């Protein structure tokens, strides 16, 4: 592992590797996760799920379940408030039909995927709850399932909704459609661009439906007070998101709902939507007792959002000296049962690493009879950038050009237009390519039969959004830091480190905690690679406010002008007067004795988000008889802007790569013709383990983001983007066949080899 720093290090805390504040609790089992919540009188909640992918619900009879001894409540979609035509305010995403949110939690007139929740039971034990589920009688009228995105676009074999029309920026189709929206980006003139190309290639790329695969299933506990206040404990990437969703679905005042986030065992975007939270709340309301709903692994696969399966058609043109002249793409992404895929993200990212003057991208959001899709680490980007990075590899072969040289020749720089027309700010793509080119891995030889090396780059746009932090100086010189971002990857430490840097104290002297929705200001989800960036910024500003307050106080004590006081390395001093110095710790103690409280409450919404780039190198060996692809060596190069805690940056890089490898080689939802998922367990939904892969080598490049006080760029998502293409390109080098349909599983590799031999 290595770090290549563009700017000379000037920090005391940033860039070091303190032990994470939550580490001891997590490795000793003391940390409190969603399933650990225990309350007096608590009931067990279980959910009945549809066995059909697409069906009308003719009737639901819950009488026998309600009569079972030990059952305290049964709910169905009829227990949810009527959403009507009201829209839920999804903040930046605007208004979305509340009906879609509500009906995904519990189906009303139709079930739209295998696993769609239909009813729920609260009972005194799990066994009784399971028995009660069997007693619920649901009469279905089975309908043809819609499983393929291209067929769905034609309305085949059925329409999912009679109230979904294709929206093209306000112009709606005259008839209902499975295509919920169409969006377009355009630069220059692609026709002219292709006319000036010496080589044109066009191919289609497919990605199967894949799941985020977080190790901790969803868990939610709800408890009502007699005065109508509701408390929800849950594993979530955003407590405020849960609060917003639940209060709108249940049509209750937001002021009467508190959401307490527990520690989280992975999310990757999949724990942003709500599932069990409203169900637990409904059950608890009826039963008048707390109710906990914990999903099984099978339920996680069947009932929660995977990411979009997709179809991408890509055409590119290049000159004989390797310049891209034009690029045209069609993206069709599965939204699942209700509209709202991340196809637009795919369109924003597909060509982002490259300077292309002529671009046309059409993006289609398409409903299918699968669970409503959710975000998955750089959502939409792996699907679209797979196409670009693979097609570039084909051009490189045609031109006999080194693939990294090609990328340097076409690399986007600051000021170059992105697909949506906005210029790139300062970016670090070239630096990642250069670092990859200089790496020991790339310079090493790869020898042996059926072995090949592939490279690919990637981009993720990252998010800013709103974060809050509160900090208070304690009498012993430590600082209590309260923030609202669920800690998925060690972020409470990276946030604490930014505060510590401002105050000149150690990271260990900052005591961070993640608070509930009553105890901290509004904070957007832990997602979008935004937490170290935005919540870190809130902590930075809190630190600056504390710094100013303490300078003012010590200036009063010393009877000097505040402007003459400095704070360096945790020591306050008045310029030029050696008799006037005091440590942060001693000043804190002094002020506490005087009854002076020092603290700050900050909310920020930073705008100058820095996108992230990565370039990866993969060596593989393919067994031509079995089709098994073994990853021999893998190096991930990534621009982190400023690696606050390098170990956690490296961890994010490695984790993202591993997920990308699983996506590329093995993972997919397998359906039968009836639309039932056949592999809803980790046994058959095959994710890579540590036994399957070599150590992922990491190289951190730092091109500071000028929009952040410390130059931070989000790091969590871009590492999942390059692996599928890197591996496809490596497989081609190994065995001479190009695979454009993920996953590149052993049967597909064998079949491709057979076809190639014919």
């Amino acid at each position, binding site marked *: 592992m290595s770090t290549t720093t563009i700017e000379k290090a000037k920090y005391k805390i940033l860039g070091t590797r303190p032990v994470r504040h939550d580490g001891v609790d997590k490795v000793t089992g003391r940390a409190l996760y969603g399933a650990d919540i225990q309350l007096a009188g608590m009931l067990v909640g279980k959910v009945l799920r549809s066995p059909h992918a697409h069906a009308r619900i003719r009737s639901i009879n819950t009488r026998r379940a309600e009569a079972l001894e030990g059952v305290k409540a049964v709910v169905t979609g009829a227990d949810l408030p009527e959403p009507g035509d009201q*829209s*839920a*305010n*999804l*903040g*930046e*995403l*605007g*208004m*979305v039909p509340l009906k879609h*949110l509500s009906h995904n939690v519990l189906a009303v007139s139709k079930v739209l995927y295998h696993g769609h929740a239909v009813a729920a039971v609260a009972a005194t034990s799990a066994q009784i709850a399971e028995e009660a589920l069997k007693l619920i009688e649901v009469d279905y009228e089975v309908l043809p399932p819609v499983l393929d995105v291209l067929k769905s676009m034609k309305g085949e074999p059925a329409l999912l909704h009679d109230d979904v029309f294709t*929206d093209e*920026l*306000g*112009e709606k189709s005259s008839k209902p459609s499975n295509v919920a*929206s*169409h969006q*377009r980006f*355009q630069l220059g003139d692609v026709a002219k661009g292709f006319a000036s190309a010496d080589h044109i290639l066009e191919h289609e790329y497919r990605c199967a439906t894949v799941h985020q695969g977080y190790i901790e299933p969803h868990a939610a506990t709800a408890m009502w007070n007699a005065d109508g206040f509701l408390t929800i404990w849950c594993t979530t990437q*955003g407590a*405020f*998101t849960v609060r*917003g969703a639940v209060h*709108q679905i249940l049509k209750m*005042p937001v002021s009467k709902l508190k959401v307490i986030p527990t520690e989280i065992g992975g999310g990757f*975007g999949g724990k*942003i939507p709500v599932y069990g939270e409203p169900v637990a709340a409904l059950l608890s309301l009826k039963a008048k007792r707390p109710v906990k709903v914990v999903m099984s692994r099978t339920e996680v696969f069947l009932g929660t*959002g995977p990411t979009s399966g997709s179809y991408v058609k890509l055409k590119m043109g290049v000159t004989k000296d390797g310049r891209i002249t034009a690029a045209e793409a069609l993206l069709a992404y599965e939204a699942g049962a209700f509209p*709202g895929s*991340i196809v*637009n*993200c795919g*369109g*924003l990212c597909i060509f982002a690493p490259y300077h292309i003057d002529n671009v046309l991208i059409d993006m289609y959001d398409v409903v299918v009879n699968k669970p409503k899709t*959710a*975000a998955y*680490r*750089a*959502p*939409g980007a792996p699907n679209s950038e797979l196409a670009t990075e693979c097609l570039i590899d084909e051009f490189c072969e045609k031109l006999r050009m080194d693939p990294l040289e090609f990328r340097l020749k076409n690399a986007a720089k600051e000021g170059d237009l992105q697909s*949506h*027309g*906005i*210029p790139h700010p300062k970016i670090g793509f070239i630096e990642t390519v250069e670092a990859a080119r200089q790496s020991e891995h790339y310079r090493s030889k790869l020898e042996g039969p059926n072995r090949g090396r592939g490279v690919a780059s990637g981009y*993720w*746009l*990252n*998010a*800013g*959004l709103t974060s809050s932090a509160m900090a208070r100086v304690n009498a012993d010189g430590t600082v209590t830091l309260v923030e609202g971002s669920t800690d998925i990857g060690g972020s409470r430490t990276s946030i604490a480190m930014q505060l510590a840097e401002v105050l000149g104290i150690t990271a260990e002297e900052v005591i961070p905690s993640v608070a509930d929705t009553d105890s901290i200001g509004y904070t*957007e*989800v832990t*997602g*979008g*690679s935004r937490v170290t960036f935005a919540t870190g910024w809130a902590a930075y500003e809190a630190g600056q406010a504390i710094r100013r307050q303490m300078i003012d106080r010590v200036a009063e004590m010393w009877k000097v002008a505040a402007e003459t006081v400095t704070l360096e390395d945790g020591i306050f001093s008045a310029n030029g007067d050696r008799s006037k110095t005091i440590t942060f710790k001693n000043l804190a103690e002094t002020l506490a004795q005087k009854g002076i409280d020092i603290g700050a409450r900050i909310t920020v*919404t930073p*705008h100058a988000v820095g996108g992230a780039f990565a370039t990866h190198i993969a060596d593989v060996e393919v067994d031509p008889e079995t089709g098994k692809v073994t990853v021999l060596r893998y190096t991930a190069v990534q621009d982190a802007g400023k690696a606050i805690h390098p170990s956690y940056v490296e961890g994010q890089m490695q984790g993202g790569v591993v997920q990308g490898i699983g996506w590329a080689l093995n993972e997919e939802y397998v359906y039968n013709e009836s639309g039932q998922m056949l592999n809803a367990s980790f046994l058959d939904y095959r994710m890579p383990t540590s036994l399957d892969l070599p150590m992922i080598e990491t190289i951190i490049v730092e091109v500071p983001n000028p929009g952040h006080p410390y130059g931070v760029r*989000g790091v*969590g*998502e871009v590492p999942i983007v390059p692996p599928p293409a890197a591996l496809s390109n490596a497989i081609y080098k190994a065995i001479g066949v190009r695979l454009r349909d993920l996953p590149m599983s052993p049967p597909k590799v064998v079949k491709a080899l057979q076809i190639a031999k014919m």
Partner: protein
Amino acid sequence: MPLVHIPALLLSLTGEVRQQRVSGTTVREVIEALDKIHPGIRDRLLQGEQLRSGLAVFVDGLVRREGLDFEVSDRSEIYFIPAVAGGCAYKVAQESSA
């Protein structure tokens, strides 16, 4: 005057004109002025009096959550981009009173 970059799907309303300078001190005023030159564009960018669902306003390269109320200058460049929020693509961000 601020410069508006016309979304690709709305080029049919502008005769394929991709950029348009119009007067206005806020994004809302700019849209109203744009509609006078290219009738019908207001109803595509707005939903009632609000920015259309799924759109975000970017001014000078930065997303502006103030949306229609964001103040612009003569040198501002305004874009209307699909609203995405990184890995927050699905979220319920704001509470409304119930």
